[in-house]
């Protein structure tokens, strides 16, 4: 990057369809892993109204996005340093009324991202569960999208539904996939292939004439690892508390792929 070039963060949305597959866990640990690679990272809790990031990171925010939206505070004051050497912007549970996407919320989110993008290398958008309009909008603001799934059938189905919506409504042609809680090495690849198979057969015909097939890129599989539970219970970052664990190594590997 030349000195005259304006830095603009690469924005990646993390989404999952089904809740409870480890999305916030991955956002926090991936951010820490990227920070360890010397990157300036911001995690924006776009899970409006269902903020869990503060719980995972053991933060007790006094100022949240809600206060920024309502004009009570400056954006600067709402950006918190998180353990792990990255920054977070938390939604706070006061954001319940924004769970529907009004033009105002849309504009506010866009403005916040535009303001912050020049200051970071990576912005991770931790989106809510489900395929609500707010989630889709958050994803639409991102350069890259990462879908998180587990080998569980409901999670795979919801991940597929998410991929389908992203491909048909947002014309996404590249979608990153991380499979969490895999029982054995290679399970992530099987799931990726299986999802791609169904996408090619059912989603591609739905695309406009000549629309290229969305490509699923498996950028990591995180093994089912008791270390994860241990870190979550202690409300610590896995990559800091147990960096040698298999799951932490897997997260580091994902960070290496995102920021080589």
């Amino acid at each position, binding site marked *: 990057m030349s000195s005259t070039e304006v830095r603009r963060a690469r924005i990646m949305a993390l989404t999952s369809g089904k809740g409870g597959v480890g999305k916030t866990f991955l956002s926090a640990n991936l951010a820490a892993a990227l920070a360890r690679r010397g990157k300036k990272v911001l995690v924006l809790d776009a899970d409006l109204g*269902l903020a869990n990031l503060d719980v995972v990171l053991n933060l007790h925010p006094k100022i949240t996005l809600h206060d920024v939206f309502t004009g009570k505070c400056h954006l600067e004051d709402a950006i918190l340093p998180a353990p792990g050497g990255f920054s977070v912007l938390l939604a706070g549970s006061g954001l319940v009324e924004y769970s*529907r996407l009004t033009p105002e919320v849309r504009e506010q989110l866009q403005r916040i991202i535009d303001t912050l993008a020049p200051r970071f290398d990576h912005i991770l958008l931790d989106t*809510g569960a489900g395929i*609500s309009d707010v989630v889709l909008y958050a994803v639409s603001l991102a350069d890259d999208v990462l879908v998180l799934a587990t080998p569980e059938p409901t999670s795979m189905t919801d991940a*597929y*539904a998410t991929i389908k919506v992203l491909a048909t409504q947002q014309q996404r042609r590249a979608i990153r996939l991380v499979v969490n809680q895999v029982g054995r090495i290679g399970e992530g690849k099987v799931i990726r292939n299986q999802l791609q198979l169904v996408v090619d057969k*059912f989603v591609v015909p739905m695309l406009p004439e000549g629309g290229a097939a969305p490509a699923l890129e498996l950028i990591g599989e995180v093994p089912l690892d008791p270390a994860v539970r241990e870190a979550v219970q202690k409300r610590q970052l896995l990559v800091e508390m147990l960096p040698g664990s298999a799951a932490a190594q897997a997260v580091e590997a994902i960070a290496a792929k995102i920021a080589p």
Partner: protein
Amino acid sequence: MGRVRLPNPPDFAGCPAARLDRIPAPFAQLPFVHPQTEPASTEDAAVLRLAPAMQLLAQSGRELPDRRSVTPVVWMQAVIDALCELSSRDPLTGLANRRQFETALASEIDRVARAGEPALVLMIDIDHFKKVNDTHGHSAGDLVLKGVAQALHDCIRPMDTVARFGGEEFAMILPNCPPSFGSTVAERVRMKVQNRAVAISPGQQVHVTVSIGGAFAPQWVRSSAPLWIERADQQLYRAKAEGRNRACLEQPTVSLVSAEEKGLLFGTSQFAELE
């Protein structure tokens, strides 16, 4: 209870009741507790002005334990419980009032958002209620409201909430009600009201019908109370517009994944490679 602690309390220790007349007017309304002394519960209770509360409770027919047979704290708790109960009920129908409904709705929203469980809200409005009032008088109208309230109450499970939302409009919260059951539930409510005769005077009965609008909570998504009610209300308008005495439910978004897609997703032998 609203105990007042003054930053610089005058020295009334030991004689709160006797000296109350010397306390400036605003504070004389409230029980006074000296910060340095243990709360003297008997004396505190003695200085409370409970007449309006007692009158309200007597009027509502709520019974309190005999004041002499229980400790003052137990008795006060019974008074508070009775007042809370009173403030959460609609006086005419005995159903939950709007305040209680909103509390219940807020906790349901929390539950649905995190647990991803289905839930249904029904808005129920009596058809042509004005005609009942105009034809038979307002006391007949009140009896109809009570009759409908009873019919609605007979339809619900213990976990459900049924409330008088305002005027001739009622509302129901049905936790854990899957979309496939929604129309059956709403239809049962409609039939229950339709089949119930309300006696408005000796030998005179009226039948009323209701229009019902329903909306499900979007699973995994946190809604807000006004939005959820508004969505159910829109369905209620639809039911009215389509001729009343019917139930209209918002169609939940159908599963985005078809059986064929699921079949391909899980049906092939690719997973066998792992074995």
